[in-house]
């Protein structure tokens, strides 16, 4: 999932500025399950902003709504009327959700209520950890299902650096060395020989180095045939 967390309320109040009508928009997918921007968080955010406004003696209407997925325009159309009536739309979606709203509603001023963190999973209650860097060139089949791009601080492809110590990363002792994890897993599965294959340099053009990315599935396109 996409993991995010709420911005400090002070920053959000600055982003909202002196808007009289604020619409808080939650999202029902990733940010719901990481407790950052789902329906409950949108309601709490709206209530917090209402109280804060009243305490400051500022008259402001703050309402909230949560859509199924903020990252798909068809779900945004359901709230078009409410967006049109707002001076500021505070999105509690990830960075994709904020931009989907801004693209779909060109006349709306959309601001982010979250800081989008990473692609990860909950490892225990209240703890989320990064697992995928969306590099566009998956090597998990070589490394026993443990990503050297996301789990190694230096994204090395051919083993650990010289500063892996007692299974921990030099960047932070609380970070397990990604390559230690890979070694331990391949060892436990009797597949250590896979590490003997030298990997060529990573093609980073499939990652951010090639600029903004796009996937086109011709089999899913509709309408007249394209050239």
């Amino acid at each position, binding site marked *: 999932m996409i993991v995010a967390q709420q911005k*400090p309320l002070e920053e959000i109040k600055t982003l909202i500025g002196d808007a009289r009508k604020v619409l808080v928009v939650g999202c029902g997918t990733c940010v719901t399950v990481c407790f950052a921007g789902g329906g409950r968080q949108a*309601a709490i955010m709206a*209530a917090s902003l209402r109280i804060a406004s009243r305490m400051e003696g500022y008259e402001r209407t703050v309402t909230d709504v949560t859509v199924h997925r903020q990252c798909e325009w068809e779900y945004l159309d359901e709230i078009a009327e409410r967006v049109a009536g707002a001076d500021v739309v505070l999105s509690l979606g990830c960075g994709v959700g904020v931009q989907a709203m801004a693209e779909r509603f060109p006349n709306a001023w959309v601001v982010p209520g979250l800081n989008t963190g990473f692609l990860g999973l909950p490892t225990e209650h209240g703890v989320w950890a990064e697992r995928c860097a969306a590099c566009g060139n998956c090597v998990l089949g070589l490394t026993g299902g443990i990503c050297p791009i996301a789990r190694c601080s230096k994204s090395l492809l051919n083993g650990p650096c010289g500063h892996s110590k007692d299974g921990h990363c030099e960047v932070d002792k609380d970070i397990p060395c990604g390559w230690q994890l890979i070694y331990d897993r391949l060892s436990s599965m009797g597949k250590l020989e896979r590490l003997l294959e030298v990997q060529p340099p990573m093609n980073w053009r499939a990652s951010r180095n090639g600029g903004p990315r796009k996937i086109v599935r011709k089999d899913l396109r509709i309408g007249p045939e394209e050239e």
Partner: protein
Amino acid sequence: MPGGCHYLEGNTNALRRVKSIQELLPQIGLEPERVRMFHMSAAMANEFVAAATEMVRQVSALGPNPLRISPVCLTDNRRGG
């Protein structure tokens, strides 16, 4: 008591939530002292009275909830636009 909850760790989980609310309150302009959690069992009547008395004293010193006396309406128009 901490760790002695009928729901095992229920009261220690609740304490984390209360601390979270205590952090939120000053951000929206209210005193964090308005919310507090006391641990006690159902058999601790004297402790309950002491906690309630202390809380009344504390909240009385803070004064009435300012939201009730603020001149601006607290609009909750969740279905509207």
